[in-house]
């Protein structure tokens, strides 16, 4: 007769658990989830050690999408980097563009004109909605299966996302990978009448968010699947550098948009949704509340977009001539849909005034969130693992870079 599993497992999960010290009678199964699995959100691979269906140890393996972006950025000019980093967090490309350009601008001492700041903020908020829509949709897919109710949720979410992609396509000409930010401002101006169309879309989505919330709260199966699953300890999350909705769902009231304002966020009052449960359901509810809040912020800012230039530098200066001082290093971060997305830059040292960075590190929130997995999975069943991965919403392009 074996001891019950919850007595065997340590109360505080140990990511470096030595399996030899676990119950010697246990017949553990090592199950590789990924790198190609329907619910690992790309190419994440998690090696699960299962006792029955209960996870004893989870080891995430990343790097299956390591595209050497940081090395590539060392070979490109500051202006050329923007389209490269677009592909990192491929669910919210606007955020990547803003994160690198904010770092370059801070080091260069350039401030974008107010119109560009407003456009960036509006784009970022609309992008946040699109990103959270994918997040909620794929989370439903994880819980309900690709052939079943999950697919219905997913397709409803994608339906709304298409409206947002249309808005961006009107401005930049692309469905995503916009390449619209540049050092010191924007490349594309708002077309005439765009603000009215954007507002209509935002109103529509903001109304639809209630549908998603009802789906989460009124559905007994969803509640059963997600409530109390993978409770994140706020101290652990902070030490791991986890930020964004995961941290806010654990009761930490921290949002860079309000606490360290950048862009046009200083001009507006932001309500940050915070929940204290810290479980998978709370994370999804925080995301839904953020979608509603983002729609409000974007609608409000759309009323007051100032007239004026959209770039601080002359176009001729943009190509190759943006240079930073030697040896200078700096860091700038923005609040992406997954948390703090920052860029650490060391300016060129090899040749004086070269137009490419010496070292560029992208501090991606998903990478930190993935490191939370070994803490969250033990003690849960295999079915919960997909819910957990869905609820921390990793984007592998950003994890591996």
């Amino acid at each position: 007769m074996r001891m019950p599993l919850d007595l065997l497992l340590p109360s505080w999960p140990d990511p470096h658990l030595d399996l030899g010290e676990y119950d010697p009678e246990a017949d553990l199964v090592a199950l590789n989830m990924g790198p190609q699995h329907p619910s690992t959100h790309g190419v994440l691979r998690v090696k699960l050690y299962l006792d029955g269906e209960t996870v004893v140890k989870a080891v995430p393996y990343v790097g299956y999408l390591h595209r050497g972006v940081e090395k590539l950025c060392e070979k490109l000019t500051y202006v050329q980097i923007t389209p490269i980093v677009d592909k990192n967090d491929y669910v919210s490309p606007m955020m990547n563009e803003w994160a690198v350009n904010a770092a370059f601008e801070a080091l260069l001492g350039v401030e974008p004109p107010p119109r560009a700041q407003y456009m960036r903020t509006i784009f970022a908020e609309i992008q946040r909605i699109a990103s959270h829509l994918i997040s909620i949709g794929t989370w439903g897919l994880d819980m309900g299966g690709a052939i079943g109710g999950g697919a219905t949720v997913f397709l409803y979410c994608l339906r709304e996302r298409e409206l947002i992609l249309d808005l961006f396509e009107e401005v930049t000409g692309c469905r995503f990978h916009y390449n619209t930010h540049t050092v010191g401002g924007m490349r594309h101006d708002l077309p005439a009448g765009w603000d009215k169309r954007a507002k209509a879309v935002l109103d529509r989505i903001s109304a639809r968010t209630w549908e998603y919330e009802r789906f989460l709260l009124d559905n007994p199966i969803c509640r059963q699947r997600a409530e109390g699953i993978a409770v994140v300890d706020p101290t652990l999350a902070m030490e791991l550098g986890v930020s964004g909705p995961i941290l806010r769902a654990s009761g930490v009231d921290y949002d860079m948009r309000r606490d360290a304002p950048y862009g046009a966020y200083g001009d507006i009052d932001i309500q940050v949704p915070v929940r204290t449960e810290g479980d998978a359901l709370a994370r999804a509810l925080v995301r839904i509340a953020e979608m509603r809040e983002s729609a409000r912020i974007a609608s409000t800012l759309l009323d007051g977009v100032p007239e004026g230039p959209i770039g601080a530098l002359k176009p001729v200066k943009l190509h190759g001539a943006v240079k930073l001082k030697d040896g200078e290093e700096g860091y700038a971060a923005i609040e992406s849909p997954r948390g703090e997305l920052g860029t650490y830059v060391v300016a060129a040292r090899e040749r004086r005034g070269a137009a490419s960075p010496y070292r560029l590190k992208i501090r991606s929130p998903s990478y930190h969130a993935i490191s939370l997995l070994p803490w969250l999975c033990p003690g849960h069943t295999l079915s919960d693992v997909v819910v957990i991965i869905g609820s921390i919403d990793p984007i592998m392009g950003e994890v591996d870079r």
Partner: protein
Amino acid sequence: MNEQDQAFRHPLYDMVEGVARFPGVDVAFTTADKVLTWSQRNSLWVFPMATSCCGIEFMAASSSRFDLDRIGTIPRATPRHCDVMIIAGTITVKMAPRVKKLWDQMPEPKWAIAMGSCAISGDFYRDIYSVVPGVDTFMPVDVYVPGCPPNPDGLLEGLRRLQDKIRRKRAGEWVEPDRRPPPGMRAPSIPRIGDPARSPRIDDAQLDSVMHLDPGGALRRSGAPPLPPVPPAEEEG
């Protein structure tokens, strides 16, 4: 015919060949073959090898606005059930063996679509140490769908092209192999700043050290055999 040249042959075909010796039966079989081809091309279940951005666009393609299900295409999670592998996204050196394995696990007849410039040629990650410069370096590709990422319409068009290819192949017509986009697009789209420590793209010494893996030199980029000549287009009418 040696064993290596023998492609997969379904036992049904052997049976059919025996019966087809009777006079008049071949007409019926030609019709039957058309029906079988029709079924193959109208039921392309895809295995989404979705690694990165193109995977999101693939999801959009199966969403309500574009709906791949219209032409009978549904995604399945296991390669054993699938007919088409859509490689959507960058394939890295770490991922490539897995892609190859999944491709080998798919049952014949099978086709592959390289979706997006990363899968076609590596795009601007082409020269990076960890990225495979195009999936056709290690597996066959039937249709290239260029774009970064391609629109869902583009993917739909690619599937349509694949359907057409299946039909024409089975009808015995010559199908010009789908080629990569022209050389101008193969080069990295963004020029590099000079790198003092830059090395030649493939070190010949490194190649020679593993030559036993590659006796014919087919993997050697410079010595790759040229594509078969294209026959002159037949005049219509």
